[in-house]
């Protein structure tokens, strides 16, 4: 009912100094520092995965399959397998692959998925939200209807329905008028399904910002000076509505990482032998009695990543939008 956005008109007039101020506050915020450190650590580790754990994360080695984390093993067992206490810190999986290596490489899949899906949905969502909020009328009604319909599917349900309809394995299809065929891997299909569930959120936020800004003094002023409405939209409205979008973007990456893992767990996302975190947990699920480490470590990786993005999102909210500080 009450709109929570749209308080930034005052900020806008001060422009530059406010942004600097926000940045300063951001780096003094302990939540932000914690979130940033966690994320930087994870990002660095995934980037340098080949240096940290050299080897092929897909190659089976049946002689050392399903070993517990090597530091928990007795010396006799270590000797029997001819390994040391730190050969496999996370243990090995069903195929005898180094679980730590797979968790590191899995970060590449999840982080890339999070970024790509969010960029995809934010760009589509912002364009549609801008159009709806700025022009109003029938366009607005149709877009709002679309948002309502998409948001009527709770949580991950729509992504599941879409991913399952897209089927397993590589999907190739041809668009009319284009001479070449598109190929979508199972990860890309899952990405599309998840992105679609995020789009309406960005439409809604953008639209709300635009509407409140449209009525604000400086836009009205620009209008009265005879500025081109499209120019006004891109130059004035969009930059000022950015902060709620930025906050949502950060939180959405976390959601996408979780949803991606959920689809992987359900067998609808990444296909074996891809080291996707959700799929790895699913592998461990059938063996949680005999080999709990198979699901514990990929789960912790997901948890840390999502916590990182959520901390960052919280901190951004504190800094950019003081009025929202206490609201979840």
């Amino acid at each position, binding site marked *: 009912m009450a709109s929570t956005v749209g308080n930034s008109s005052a900020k806008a007039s001060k422009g530059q100094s406010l942004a600097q101020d926000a940045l300063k506050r951001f780096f003094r915020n302990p939540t932000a520092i914690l979130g940033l450190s966690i994320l930087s650590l994870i990002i660095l580790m995934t980037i340098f995965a080949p240096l940290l754990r050299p080897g092929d994360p*897909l*190659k*089976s080695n*049946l*002689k050392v*399959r*399903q070993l517990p984390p090597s530091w928990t093993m007795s010396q006799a067992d270590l000797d029997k397998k001819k390994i040391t206490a730190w050969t496999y810190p996370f243990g090995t999986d*069903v*195929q*005898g692959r180094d679980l730590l290596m797979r968790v590191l490489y899995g970060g590449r899949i999840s982080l890339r998925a999070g970024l790509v899906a969010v960029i995809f949905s934010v760009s589509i969502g912002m364009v549609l939200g801008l159009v709806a909020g700025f022009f109003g009328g029938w366009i607005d009604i149709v877009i709002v209807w679309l948002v309502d319909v998409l948001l009527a599917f709770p949580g991950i349900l729509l992504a599941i329905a879409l991913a399952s309809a897209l*089927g*397993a*394995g*590589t999907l190739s299809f041809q668009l009319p008028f284009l001479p070449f065929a598109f190929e979508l891997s199972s990860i890309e299909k899952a990405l599309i399904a998840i992105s679609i569930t995020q789009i309406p959120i960005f439409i809604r936020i953008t639209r709300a910002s635009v509407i409140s800004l449209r009525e604000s003094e400086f836009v009205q002023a620009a209008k009265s000076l005879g500025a081109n409405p499209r120019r006004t939209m891109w130059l004035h409205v969009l930059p000022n509505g950015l902060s709620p979008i930025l906050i949502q973007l950060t939180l959405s990456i976390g959601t996408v990482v979780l949803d991606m893992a959920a689809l992987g767990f359900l*067998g609808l996302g990444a*296909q*074996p*032998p891809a080291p996707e975190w959700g799929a790895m947990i699913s*592998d461990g*699920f*059938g*063996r*949680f*009695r*005999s080999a709990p480490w198979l699901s514990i470590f990929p789960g912790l990786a997901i948890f840390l990543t999502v916590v990182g993005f959520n901390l960052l999102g919280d901190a951004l909210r504190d800094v950019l939008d003081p009025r929202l500080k206490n609201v979840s």
Partner: protein
Amino acid sequence: MKKLALLLLSLLAFWSVANAQTLVFGQSRLPISLDTATDGNSLTVGYQIVENLVGFKESSAEIEPLLAESWEASEDAKSWTFHLRQGVSFTDGTPFNAEAVKFNIDRWNNQDNPYAFAAEGKDFTAWPSIFTNFYGEEGYIVESVDVVDEYTAQINLTRPLGYLPQLLAAAYFGMHSPKAVMESGFEYGGPTKGVVGTGPFVFVEWIDGDRLTLDRNEDYWGENAKVEKLVFRGIEEAATRLAELEAGSIDIAVNLSPDDYEAVSNNADLKVVFPDADLRVGYVGMHQANKPFDDVRVRQALAYAIDKDAIVEAFYGELGAVANEFIPPSLIGRLENDPYPYDPEKAKELLAEAGYADGFDTQFWYMPVSRPYYPNPKDVAEAIASMLSEVGINAELMTEDWGIYLDDYALGKFPIYMLGWSADFADSDNFISPFFSRTQGPDGFGWNNAEAFDLIEAAQSAGTVEERTAIYQQIEQILYDELPAMPLVNPRSLSATRANIEGFLPNPLGSTVPFRTITKN
């Protein structure tokens, strides 16, 4: 406190009384249907309710009379007469007689029969896989069923078949009450209607996703079952199934993971159960109608590239043996050749000879479900794909729903794939003709070998064991050289019961286990 203890005690007493007569059976899923489904989970349940004309001796693949007391073939083996047990009724009161036999076989055999419910989506795939085809379609075997008198039925065939009784003993062919089928319509066999047979148990209730309950048939024509109630539970994960068994909430758990063999055998509350020799084989198929598997060298390269010993040791342990031929060890006609050894270098050479020095990209399809021959199909698939990548064969792992998987395999859509076989009846033919016969071979393997087709048909109608053995060995030699598919493993399926369960004797044929004789002490 004392009161509480008393209450607990009486509860415990009540518990054990309530439990003593109920046998709880844990399998991976509840049935799909009790009528036309062909999966083990459906058949195991159905086998307790409906009975076949021909049965199996206890824990053996040898046949014995069941609803038919005796049978004989005409001289040309093209017409078989079955003499039925008299005085047997279905549990809805319908008498079991030759009319009922005709009703059942007609509805299986003929897709146009109104009670086949083909247009409603029922698809009795077991029939064409065992009797070559449905009535009127290419190569069909069963021509008609005649009611000779009330208790004599005659089955007429289009060509001689020396082992029709073995075929009719397969778990799919239980006799259903004609009245029940007609009254229930296409929903017959589903959760709301159940099925009606002559067997030692009657259908009571099927709560989808939870349990399926049968009661003892108190008017059974033979000796009544030992337990009063049978409950089936579908517990998907083998690990969870074992956990429930250890907790005592189920009495029998089947298809456990080979990984858990040690845990089960070390537990004094449990008994490990498996048949001496399962009649099963797990294999890797290649579709040779298409490139690159049209070249025998490529197929052989694949066999050299896969370390069968390592796979069987890792994923089966003591519960599997490397298979080198399709016919399993206890049957006639085996070659006992040396297997293709693990030799990646040789594989690369063969690939280079065939013009694939740099390898190639392909798809490897693995089964989405656990079957007795491949308890963990995804694991085996990943290991094989990893080995293939060593010799330059880049196989994308693929899977899809089991039902569609079986269709697509038969349509020849898979370049390389995993599949296996559990015998329907104990004859070498059942490990050859479902794959390599004139009608089946072209489907999944793109196999079109006229010499093999002729030999298979010759073996079916050959008279003596020696003749048949010789022919099967010839066939096996062709399969060994041409390698339309690579046999991988002869597994034994692991089951376990609580220590107080007696008389659970798995059959080498899998689903045909009668629960009538099981006791719970």
